[in-house]
């Protein structure tokens, strides 16, 4: 009713998003309502400022890196599809999905994709490698001014030393996966919805 018709989500779109992300109908409409409330410019897309307006995100030391994960290379706006695609990484893995046929294309919230999301938080220049420099920068974001350069440097060195198996002094995605093979990624990188 009223002038909101143009901003309502069409059923076909909801179906497409459901297939792509695995969210339920009610979760999608709820997140759509969240999307529109963040979209202050009311133009159907979110900019980085829209995200930064969330206080709990603004105080997160890695807030900017997380916001960046929503925006594809070189773009400044993200639409609802892109928004959902990124959020889908944090959907919990249902029990009945675990036995899914490997022939089906990998769901967005698979273990590998969750790890990929985390990997990309470290990989600042998106060259699929975490260099010592990049690791240092991310560490610096997490600890602020509370740890000295030297100490941070030795943390970075030790981490790369432990992870790097092919000796190129940087961490590739496969090396990353290996380091974290014992970690319960499914649980740590999942957000449960209330309904």
């Amino acid at each position, binding site marked *: 009713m009223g002038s909101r018709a143009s901003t309502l989500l069409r059923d076909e779109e909801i179906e497409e998003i459901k297939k792509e992300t695995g969210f339920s109908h009610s979760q999608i409409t709820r997140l759509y309502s969240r999307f529109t409330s963040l979209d202050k410019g009311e133009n159907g897309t979110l900019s980085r400022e829209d995200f930064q307006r969330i206080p709990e995100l603004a105080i997160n030391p890695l807030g900017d890196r997380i916001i960046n994960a929503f925006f594809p290379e070189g773009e400044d706006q993200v639409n609802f599809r892109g928004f959902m695609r990124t959020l889908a990484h944090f959907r919990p893995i249902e029990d009945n999905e675990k036995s899914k046929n490997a022939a089906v294309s990998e769901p967005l919230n698979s273990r590998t994709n969750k790890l990929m999301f985390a990997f990309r938080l470290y990989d600042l220049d998106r060259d699929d490698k975490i260099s010592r420099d990049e690791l240092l920068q991310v560490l610096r974001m997490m600890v602020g001014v*509370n740890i000295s350069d030297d100490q941070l440097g030795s943390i970075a060195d030790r981490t790369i030393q432990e992870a790097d198996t092919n000796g190129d002094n940087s*961490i590739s995605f496969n090396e990353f996966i290996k380091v974290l093979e014992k970690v319960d990624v499914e649980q740590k990188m999942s*957000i449960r919805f209330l309904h």
Partner: protein
Amino acid sequence: IIWATLRIERGIRRSGSNRDLNSAPEFEMSDIFYFARRGVASIMDDEVTKRFSAEELESWNLLTRSNNNFHYISLRLTVLWGLGLLIRYSFLLPLRVTLAFTGVGLLVFLTCVIGLLPNGRLKNFLSQKVHLMCYRICVRALTAIITYHDSENKPKNGGICVANHTSPIDVIILASDGCYAMVGQIHGGLMGVIQRSMVKACPHIWFERSEVKDRHLVAKRLSDHVEDKSKLPILIFPEGTCINNTSVMMFKKGSFEIGATVYPVAIKYDPRFGDAFWNSSKFGMVNYLLRMMSSWAIVCSVWYLPPMSREEGEDACQFANRVKAAIARQGGLVDLLWDGGLKRGKVKDTFKEEQQKLYSKMLVGTQEDRTHRKGALSSL
């Protein structure tokens, strides 16, 4: 618990190395998961931004403005809505606007007349009667149905009345049941005219825009006022801005530093009849008032809570939080530590630095430090 399990796993893996467990910093690449998860969770939903827009209703109340999530449901409902529209706009609205003009007009005129009288008991008496009468007319103009609870706790002279803030109507609601000295910034336009005439009849505390920034000046004027027992209790909204009536946000401590008795008041609107929240970034004042006057009614409850004073060893901040908690509890509102100023401004960097500090302590602290921090971090 998550960090502890991680540490045990790490301990088992490292037991072969010659590093001392207690002093080596323990960064793991998986630490990033913690930040990522919290960040994305706040993107999905957070406690703060939703307080600055109207509350979502569970079922529709036949007002289009509350119709964000409800689409066309049935013909019968549409007919009902149409009928409601007719009644509201052609009957209720003109009636209410007339009343509003009458109320405001009388207020301005009569307070000017009373201002001509010499200061004394007669002037105070008449001023109170006039204020009450005009506010009550305004209450009718909004069709506000107010239930006052615990009137024995009503604020007395020399005290400060604090209440949670949802809209400018809060003032009318409280002032129609008791006489207060208002505090606020002088505006231009119609508002300014009203303010200037009100102060002729009895002392209110209006500040020039420039004076508002000067905290000491503000505090001095407030404390001068409360010391004069012949003056009316001050009415203040410590949140500093309108919140959507689902929560109470941080109270600015200025009014709690003065040392006067505080009379807390909780105001809770029933959203089913009309949403009273003023979203000032979306609607101007006139637009807002028209919306109020074309709703079904404003239904609200007012609770006068027992007076509170600052206790020994309590600072203004703690006192403010104690009052806030009491108001939140009575009104059934969520008690938040966040500042209502976040409606317009950015969050301070100190909060982010706090987070970084906590994480750093976890990395390089001693074993006891880490066990202690683990508890603190998991509650972040």
